[in-house]
């Protein structure tokens, strides 16, 4: 990662917020279990932990979205109750969430003016004054009258930070702030974070990327199953090198060293590249996409002149910054979105005009990144979701009649084979965790008849165990059966770990394809930021 190692300044001892014994229970889980933590002014404090470690709950308590069942929060030595998000902002605790929560059709200034009491007229002059103050603090250069929809994601994040700091600069909470940024954006964010720290803000930085925590944080706290399991204070962090920090954190996260070993590779992105079987590219490609174009709604990036070739048994990665046509590419390949120009050939057959059902019958499979948004019918059972793409077809339907016993039997088998953790096959799928929903999707899409499988962000939102599992299944999917695999991801590490070649998307087209060999990372990075003309 390209972020400079920060010179660690002397940490302030000025306590901004102190939590003691904070506990929050949900049905069946203790999300936060007696958490005691201190966030100090002038310090960047990273919170690390797997999915389900309790990070999100802790943020929602600090930002006033939820109330702790037990424990105390003290600000400047005084116990406070953070009753609502507005109360949190008034206390100077601002949160920037992973997903942008701005209104794209409004201008920068209008977005900042939202949230006042309904009876108070909008005060442009005062808003502009505060905007300029914060622009100075962040060294941001945003046009106050530009519609937010036209800003880059990095600029939108700067705006979110301004909004979080609007009522006071005590605590800034950043939830996975780098997940949607370019490497350049990550660097810029690093600069902003350091400026804020030096200004005396207590920055809380939630991440699951160890590298970023090491580069940016003065203090690292590790959460596991709702508890604080370890902390590296500024003094310790200064003495250790990155390798030692990784070891320490892994030790906290998994308790035993051995248990963590396989996961550590996933975590640090240093997994051994798979022993690559040679892909035979002498024959015809399994998939050829030629001159493909799509039509998009406003705010979407359609395909333009997109060209792809994937050979049998090959895993092709699609890298690129989010919103550069990846979604349309996946949908066009799956048959969910018609091509307005160009054609698609699968194993010598023109499938351009085929829709989802027909494409499925010739072996096209699509594992969507929106597992609940479109991949599953939330209120329907695991069993129904496992056969979602076969409705009306044998063997689970005969003459239009549903054979529920067969569907349930099939589901019980799949649940066992794929180790899906669910109370029963009749449980509504939305009740399952993200990792288990992904297992259901993988079970549905990866069958021996698959000839082309499209994975869209296959590990998005998964914890380490499930990330590793999903990547293993991708690797197993290609070599053994000779299917062509397309893996779309914005995590370069993931693509480097799994793919044979990596194509880079920019502005709805493929700007270049890089063989996954030493030096690929740099070549991809240059293509992504447009430094290389393809």
């Amino acid at each position, binding site marked *: 990662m390209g972020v400079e190692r920060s010179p660690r300044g002397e940490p302030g001892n000025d306590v901004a917020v102190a939590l003691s014994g904070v506990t929050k229970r*949900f049905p069946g889980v203790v999300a936060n279990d007696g958490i005691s933590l201190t966030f100090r002014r002038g310090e960047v404090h990273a919170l690390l932990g797997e999915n389900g470690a309790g990070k999100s709950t802790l943020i929602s308590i600090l930002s006033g979205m939820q109330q702790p069942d037990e424990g105390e929060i003290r600000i400047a030595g005084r116990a406070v109750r953070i009753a609502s998000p507005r109360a949190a902002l008034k206390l100077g605790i601002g949160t920037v969430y992973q997903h942008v929560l701005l209104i794209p059709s409004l201008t920068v200034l209008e977005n900042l003016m939202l949230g006042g009491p309904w009876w108070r007229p909008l005060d442009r002059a005062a808003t502009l004054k505060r905007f300029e103050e914060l622009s100075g603090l962040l060294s941001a250069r945003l046009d106050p009258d530009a519609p937010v929809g036209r800003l880059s994601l990095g600029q939108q994040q700067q705006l979110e930070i301004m909004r979080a700091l609007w009522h006071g600069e005590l605590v800034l909470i950043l939830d996975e702030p780098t997940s949607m940024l370019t490497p350049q954006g990550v660097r810029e964010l690093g600069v902003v974070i350091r400026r804020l720290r030096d200004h005396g803000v207590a920055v809380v930085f939630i991440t699951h990327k160890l590298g970023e925590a090491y580069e940016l944080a003065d203090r690292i706290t590790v959460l596991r199953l709702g508890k604080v399991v370890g902390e590296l204070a500024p003094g310790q962090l200064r003495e250790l090198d990155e390798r030692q920090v990784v070891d320490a954190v892994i030790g906290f996260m998994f308790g035993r060293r051995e248990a963590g070993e396989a996961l550590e590779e996933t975590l640090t992105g240093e997994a051994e590249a798979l022993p690559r079987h040679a892909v035979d590219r002498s024959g015809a490609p399994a998939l050829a996409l030629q001159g493909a174009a799509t039509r998009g709604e406003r705010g979407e990036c359609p395909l333009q002149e997109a060209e792809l070739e994937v050979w049998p048994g090959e895993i092709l990665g699609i890298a690129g910054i989010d919103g550069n046509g990846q979604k349309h590419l996946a949908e066009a390949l799956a048959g969910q979105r018609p091509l307005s120009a160009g054609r698609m050939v699968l194993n010598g057959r023109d499938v351009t005009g085929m829709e989802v059902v027909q494409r499925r019958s010739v072996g096209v499979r699509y594992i969507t990144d929106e597992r609940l948004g479109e991949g599953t019918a939330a209120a329907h059972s695991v069993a129904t979701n496992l056969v979602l793409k076969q409705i009306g077809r044998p063997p689970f339907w005969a003459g239009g009649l549903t054979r529920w016993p067969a569907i349930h039997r099939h589901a019980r088998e799949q649940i066992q084979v794929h180790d899906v953790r669910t109370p029963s096959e009749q449980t509504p799928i939305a009740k399952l965790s993200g990792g288990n929903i992904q297992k259901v999707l993988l079970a549905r899409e990866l069958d021996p008849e698959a000839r082309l499988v499209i994975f869209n962000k296959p590990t998005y939102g998964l914890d380490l165990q499930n990330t590793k599992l999903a990547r293993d299944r991708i690797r197993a999917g290609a070599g053994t059966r000779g299917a062509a695999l397309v893996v779309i991801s914005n995590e370069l590490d993931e693509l480097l770990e799994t793919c044979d070649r990596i194509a880079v998307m920019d502005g709805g087209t493929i700007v270049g394809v890089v063989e996954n060999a030493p030096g690929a990372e740099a070549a991809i990075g240059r293509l992504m930021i447009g430094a290389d003309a393809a």
Partner: protein
Amino acid sequence: MAGLQEKGRGAEAAFTLLRVLLPVLLALVVGGLILVALGKDPLAYYRFVVERGLLSPIGLQASITRMAPLLLIAAGLIVAFRAGLWNLGVDGQFLLAAVFVAALAPSLVAGGLPHILVILVCFAVAAAIGAAWSVIPAYLKAEHGINEIISTLMMSFLGVSLANVLIKLPFNDPSTTVPQTATLAVEDRLARLGGTTIHWGVLLGLAAVIGVHYLMSRTSLGLKLQIVGSNPRTAIHAGIDVRRLTFLAFAISAAFAGLGGAVDVMGVQGTIRADWNPAYGILVIPLIFLARFNGWAVIGFVFFFAVLMIGGESAARRMGVPTFYVLVQVALLLVFFAVVEMLDHARQKRRGA
């Protein structure tokens, strides 16, 4: 330990019973207070409604007969609502089909068509008219994503108005002084069951609701419609033709409403006067939600409301309580069902935490 579990299960069953009975009780109490405010004796009113709607043989038969159009409308609404389509235009679809049948049936009889063919032709025409009246909202929804709540309601107003125009102009029976359609002779109407006043349209209605229940739960079409209803994007992802199913679900739904109109005209009314609009659809819509789309529960609720309507209509004539007081009672029930549901939800959440 086992005893404790038994006790827990018993308490749970008691809560389930309470969830049904409490709203009914509350609605009766609050409704009673309204009656008192109107200067009527609530106990006498309720007793009268139960006697006339349920206990007297004539009243019971009238209640069951009334179920026929309600059940057919309900069957259609189950399909539409499960497919996520708010067909709120059933009243227009119902009335327009009813008016066409009212005009067509006597002329077919006059033309010498056998009884069974008259019925079949009228049913087919009613279903077709109903379905045709849903094409515009279906098209707007499927092709342009326009909200069907608005478009079906507007089509319903147009349908009701058009039905009136038809009665007053082309379908008017000149031999009567008030504008109305020609009357279908009693012997040409739907046959009675045994020695009762109940016509066989009720059986058709029951068959329709049960048939739809099985269509939705046991067939691929039903599951596809449910997926469209639960999340259209999931349906597209699974390769389900959302466009086609939108048209189909609207057509099925409206065709059943049209059939309801045919059954009411050929079974009970025999003729339609201008400005007649029973607005059954508006009454049935909330029942579908109370029954949570379950066909068997829908039958139960429809029976309950038919009793309330027949009893209420009787009471209106005898005690001077306006007919629309039945609607007040229905509205109160719905409000209290919702409130109790909400409280129960909160209780379960608390227990879970």
